Structures are given as C-alpha cells and as structure tokens.
C-alpha cells in the first residue's frame, strides 16, 4: 500500500487544495473512519454521511490545525463528535452483547469433570507461519470476520491493532473507560481467533 508522506506535507497539501493528497488520505483512512462512525450510528448509510460531514469539517478546519495531536487523531476526534451528535438522534440503541457470547460452549471442563475450568481438549495446532502473520485463506477469514464484528468491538480493534494506538489513546478518542476498552478489544480478538480456528478445523457449515 502506498505510504503517506509525513504529516507536515499532508497538512500543507490539504491547505493548498491538493486533490491527490486528499485522495490518498481518503483511501488510507476511510475504512477505519467508517468503522468508528458505525459504532455510534445504527446504519452504514448514516456512517457514510458522518464520513462526508467529517471530511468537510476537516477541510474547513485544516487552516487552523495546530498539530497538538496528530492529524489522524484530530480527524478521529472530529468524527467522533459528529457521529455522537448524529447517533443521539438514531432511535435504536446498539446492543452491547454479553461477556460470554463468543465463548464456544463446551470448550472447558465442567464442575463434575476432573479439572473444572481446564481445557477439555487443547486448541488444535495451526500450521506455523512466518513471524506469526497468517496468510492466504486464514488471513481472508480475518478480513471477513473484522467486517462482521459488532460495531463497538470493531472500532476498538481498528484503533488498537490496525492503527496502532495505545489503550490510553483509544480511551481518549472514543471516551470510554480502560475496562470497557479492554473488554471490547478482547472480545474482538477472541472472535477473530475463533474464526481462524474454525477454518483450520475445517468447519465448513457457514459456507454457501
């Protein structure tokens, strides 16, 4: 993927009305922006409108951008403000799901088994991969699973594992508590791991 130039160059480009610079940013940042927006609003269409409103606000405000935060963080903050305002008008509350939803049943031994709370069977081994990074279909399953995560989990994993923000930074951007941040991130990662495990186990029941 094309690397973006350094931040001062990006900011100068936007201020000068450089269309190619704007296009590069839109291509690099929009997916995560949509996922963040979607954690506040209840439809993909609303999230796209939030994205448009955000970019307009960014362009109007870029002249006064002072660089106290990074440009991306500043863009995210604008987005969260717009999405929150809009989400407050969405009638439907987003379900947050329960803690145990994604644990596959029967993975651990029950109270009457010899070792309660321990594995019934160890997780099946995965084929080894270069530096732990999965390739091919396993990677494809992760991409598909990301798209299907509950929106709040997806927003957090996008910021942590795709953007590389720290836990503290994510809490500040989304204005959530450290405990909440951790639970959402953990559920997201565990759900993705489960999807890869299903793939390596050869579960094909979800295939069309």
């Amino acid at each position, binding site marked *: 993927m094309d690397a973006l130039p350094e931040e001062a160059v990006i900011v100068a480009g936007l201020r000068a009305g450089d269309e190619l610079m704007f296009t590069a940013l839109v*291509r690099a940042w*929009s997916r995560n922006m949509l996922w963040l927006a979607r954690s506040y609003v209840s439809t993909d269409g609303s999230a796209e409108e939030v994205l448009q409103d955000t970019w307009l606000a960014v362009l109007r405000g870029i002249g006064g951008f002072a660089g106290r935060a990074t440009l991306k963080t500043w863009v995210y903050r604008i987005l969260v403000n717009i999405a929150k305002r809009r989400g407050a008008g969405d009638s439907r509350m987003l379900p947050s799901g329960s803690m145990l939803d994604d644990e596959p049943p029967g993975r651990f031994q029950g109270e009457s088994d010899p070792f309660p709370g321990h594995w019934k069977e160890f997780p099946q081994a995965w084929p080894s991969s270069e530096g732990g990074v999965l390739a091919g279909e396993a990677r494809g399953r992760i991409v598909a699973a990301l798209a299907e995560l509950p929106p709040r989990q997806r927003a957090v994993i996008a910021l942590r594992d795709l953007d590389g923000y720290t836990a503290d930074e994510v809490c500040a951007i989304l204005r959530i508590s450290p405990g909440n941040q951790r639970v959402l991130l953990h559920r997201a990662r565990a759900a993705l791991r489960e999807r890869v495990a299903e793939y390596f186990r050869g579960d094909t029941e979800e295939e069309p």
Partner: protein
Amino acid sequence: MTEPACRELVELITAYLDDVLEVATRRGFEEHLAACGGCERYLEQFRSVIATVEDLPPAPPSSELQAQLMAVFRDWRSS
C-alpha cells in the same frame, strides 16, 4: 492469587499483553502458562491473530463513496 484455570486465563490475555495485570495475577498467569500446553498454544494463536490484523493494508472505500468525497472536496476548494 491462586493460579487461574484455563477458562480464566484466556479472558486475561489482552490485559496480560497490555501489561495491566496486578503483580500477583501476572505471576499466576505466567505460572499457569509455563505448565499448560493448551493455554500456551491459545496465547500463541491470539498473538498470531493480532500480528495478522496489524499487517493488513488499508482498504479504500467504494468508488461511489470515494466519488462523493471528491465532490465534497471540490465544493470546499471552490468555496
């Protein structure tokens, strides 16, 4: 703290990786891990998933949405 069972351990992994477990909990976590091949493997797979997500390239928006955003940009520039 007593050593966590596997069921508890898998729920602590993100906190462990962020290094926010209390000292005693962390010690129990690591003691369990050293002796449990199942949890060791689970942790390794968890790390592998994280490494893969970190490695994913950005995905550009649909061409339709991109066109709408370009229209926003041109409107702004001509205003």
